[in-house]
């Protein structure tokens, strides 16, 4: 029997490159929401340690060879890339792999572009590399992960991918147009 064809969240929308910023869809990876059960935080820590990770403090992430774990809310983190099988007894695990459009914005103007859509202080002192923010991309719920000095991963609801790309592209064009007159 034929198997079902996969469609990416940003199919036909990315990549785009405008001025000194570019945006592309990240390679699909497994994303699992990890929410520790009551009283199982220590057990979860042991499980995460086996992956070279630990429970991330609010606003932070950890990365190992196995994958990354991003704090995403009260008692909630997203495990990215790694297999969560070993955590099953200590945390509620929920597959989120298909729920998010995951994009990477990079370039010297990346911070300026985000300043058009995100009400966050993204100066590197306030949001160092590796930190994570739950916030809004304009009106859209977002997980923002600073993956480099000039690079951010942006997660928005899969259904909002087209709007997100539309708004990001408009911000990129505005910033690029300003660059020409600076």
């Amino acid at each position, binding site marked *: 029997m034929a198997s079902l064809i996969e469609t990416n969240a940003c199919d036909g929308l990315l990549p785009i490159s405008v001025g000194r910023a570019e945006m592309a869809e990240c390679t699909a990876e497994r994303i699992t929401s990890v929410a520790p059960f009551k009283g199982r935080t220590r057990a979860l820590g042991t499980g995460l340690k086996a992956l070279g990770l630990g429970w991330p403090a*609010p*606003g932070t992430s950890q990365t190992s060879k196995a994958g990354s774990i991003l704090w*995403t809310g009260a008692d909630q983190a997203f495990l990215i890339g790694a297999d969560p099988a070993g955590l099953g007894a200590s945390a509620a695990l929920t597959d989120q792999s298909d729920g998010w459009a995951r994009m990477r914005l990079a370039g010297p103007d990346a911070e300026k572009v985000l300043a058009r859509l995100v*009400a966050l202080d993204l100066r590197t002192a306030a949001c160092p590399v590796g930190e994570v923010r739950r916030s809004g991309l304009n009106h859209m719920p977002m997980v923002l992960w600073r993956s480099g000095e000039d690079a951010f991963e942006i997660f928005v609801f899969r259904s909002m991918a087209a709007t997100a790309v539309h708004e990001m592209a408009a911000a990129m064009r505005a910033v690029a147009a300003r660059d020409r007159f600076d």
Partner: protein
Amino acid sequence: MRINCPLCGTRDRREFTYYGASVYADRPAESAGPEAWDDYLHLRDNPAGETTDLWYHELGCAAWIEVTRNTVTHEISGTRLLTAPEKGGAK
């Protein structure tokens, strides 16, 4: 307006959804009777001064937060997670 989310730090108010007075978190027993339920659901103080109310960090970490603020000066004197053990403000 900016609200200090105990988990996320200080954020613009547009990330939050306002709910109302924090007494809404103190739910009467099922058998408390119509007056207690009426009081809990519908009767609110309207102070010129300090008030505590509930905000949901909807475009953030999904925490419910109790915010103590002054309706005259707009000063926010404190915030705490609703799940935090000690309860502050007018109860």
